């Protein structure tokens, strides 16, 4: 009996979130004295390296094809391997799979898990983020099969030099989607907001789209993604997909930098999973300072270039 982790890939490597999910499963497996098996949605150059994060086995499809019946493949894996827990890392693709598998297997499904698993006896206790990060709910799992979708940055992986045992499997033939894709357009900007370790966001205090070079230059220096507040995307200063907040993108970087954003409760809801928050605002009464770790009261048109120059030489 083991815990199954289903992970995504990007450019022939594991996605960073794959390591988060395997580390979460390894922590749970240790507490339950079980083992971890990983199934890879795609192709990776060195699948065995997932063993470093605590997975004993890794299943790789012999000819990866996302048009095959992935739901059926995983459902069969769950019954053959006597899986009681399946772990996914939050993403549109993983949440869709998790939901579909939970219907097929009549299992319990929990999304937005935001803390390491705990046990009471042999019963798993989880914590989920609700009200867009403004609250949490703690639940006990009582289903024979539980499907867990976790948010990122929950725990630090315990790394080892162990390698996972690789097993090549065949994808199941079954139902194929009737949806027809007419092509994908990638947004500009290299770093995804949801994946970024650092995010630099601007608000109305930026005064206009023509001043965004200040945000972009700082982001470039830090290898950060760029975001904005809702008024900024509503005024079309920046594209909608950069809108960070309760009804926009929710981010969880190590550092969130907010320049000229007052910190309305709806904006805070989108950034409250950040580890550290730096607020730059000329108004010392801006509510954002109450939610921040570092604050600079000053004119962002002076602070941003100065900070950028210092960081460049740091």
């Amino acid at each position, binding site marked *: 009996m083991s815990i199954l982790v289903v992970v995504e890939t990007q450019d022939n490597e594991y996605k960073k979130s794959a390591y988060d999910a395997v580390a979460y499963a390894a922590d749970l497996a240790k507490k339950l004295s079980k083992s971890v098996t990983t199934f890879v949605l795609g192709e990776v150059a060195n699948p065995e390296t997932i063993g470093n994060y605590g997975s004993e086995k890794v299943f790789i499809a012999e000819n990866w094809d996302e048009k095959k019946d992935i739901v059926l493949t995983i459902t069969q894996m769950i019954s053959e391997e006597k899986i009681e827990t399946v772990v996914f890392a939050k993403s549109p*693709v993983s949440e869709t799979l*998790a939901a*579909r598998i939970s219907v097929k297997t009549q299992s*319990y*499904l929990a999304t937005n898990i935001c803390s390491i698993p705990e046990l009471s006896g042999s019963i798993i206790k989880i914590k989920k983020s609700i009200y867009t990060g403004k609250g949490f709910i703690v639940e006990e799992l009582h289903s024979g099969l539980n499907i867990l979708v976790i948010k990122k940055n929950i725990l630090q992986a315990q790394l080892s030099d162990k390698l996972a045992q690789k097993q090549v499997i065949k994808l199941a033939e079954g139902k194929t989607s009737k*949806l027809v894709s*007419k092509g994908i357009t990638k947004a500009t900007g290299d770093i995804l907001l949801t994946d970024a370790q*650092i995010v630099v966001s601007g608000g109305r205090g930026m005064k206009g789209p023509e001043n965004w070079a200040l945000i972009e230059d700082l982001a470039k220096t830090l290898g950060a993604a760029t975001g904005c507040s809702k008024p900024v995307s509503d005024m079309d200063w920046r594209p909608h997909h950069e809108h960070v907040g309760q009804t926009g993108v929710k981010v969880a970087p190590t*550092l969130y930098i907010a320049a000229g954003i007052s910190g309305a409760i709806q904006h805070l809801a989108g950034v409250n999973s950040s580890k550290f928050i730096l607020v730059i605002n000329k108004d010392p009464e801006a509510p954002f300072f109450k939610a921040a770790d570092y604050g600079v009261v000053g004119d962002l048109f002076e*602070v941003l270039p100065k900070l950028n120059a210092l960081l460049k030489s740091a």
Partner: protein
Amino acid sequence: MKILVCITHVPDTTSKITFIENNSKFNSAGVQFIIGPYDEYALSKAIDIRDKQGVGEITVLNVGTSETENTLRKALAIGADKAVRVDSEPISSIFTATQISNFVKNNSFDLVLMGRESIDFNGGIVHTLVAEMLDWECVNPIMKLDIVGDKLLMTKEVDGGKEEIEANLPLVLGCQEPIAEWKIPSMKGIMSSRTKPLVVIDPIPVSIGSKVLAFEVPQPKSGCKMIDPSNLEQLVELLKNEAKVLN
């Protein structure tokens, strides 16, 4: 076209979230409840489709107790034709999806629309669950929807970009901005919302695989370190050695 729009009854986005009775219950005192913002985009789009085609009917559904009826009446005022309330707390995503899919099975619909997620429990999976239970396709989250003949053309948000998708009915769609402009209820809409049908139905039983132990609120930040703008070197030092984000 017969469209079902599923709406949530959720605290306004500006609400402060607290819990009472030893952290076992949401504190609704002083909280204003609204139609979920993403669900309101779904409702607005349904109205656009019906009004453009000149035929069709919009049913709006909520899984909730009697206090959600004001929210359903608001949806009727905005322009839905009739309302259904499944009389139960929306206990879990699977519970809610089972109620919706059961209603769709017993009544024929061409299209089921809802928001990409609720803003209370943020599950973001009810649309996908409903589609799987009905053996329909689901597309989520969509930002644009056009109907050309019998084809639906959609723009879906994907990691770092957009995807154009084409599909036939029936479908379940999760909506987000800017799919349609929110509608302001007219005086006529408000008047007629009182007489439009609002039917209450019993939920069907669903086994729940979990038990809620408690609610919690986030720990407040320990305090903001203020840095003088003339001493940004100190900030760089903190980012480097405390936040450890520079390497």
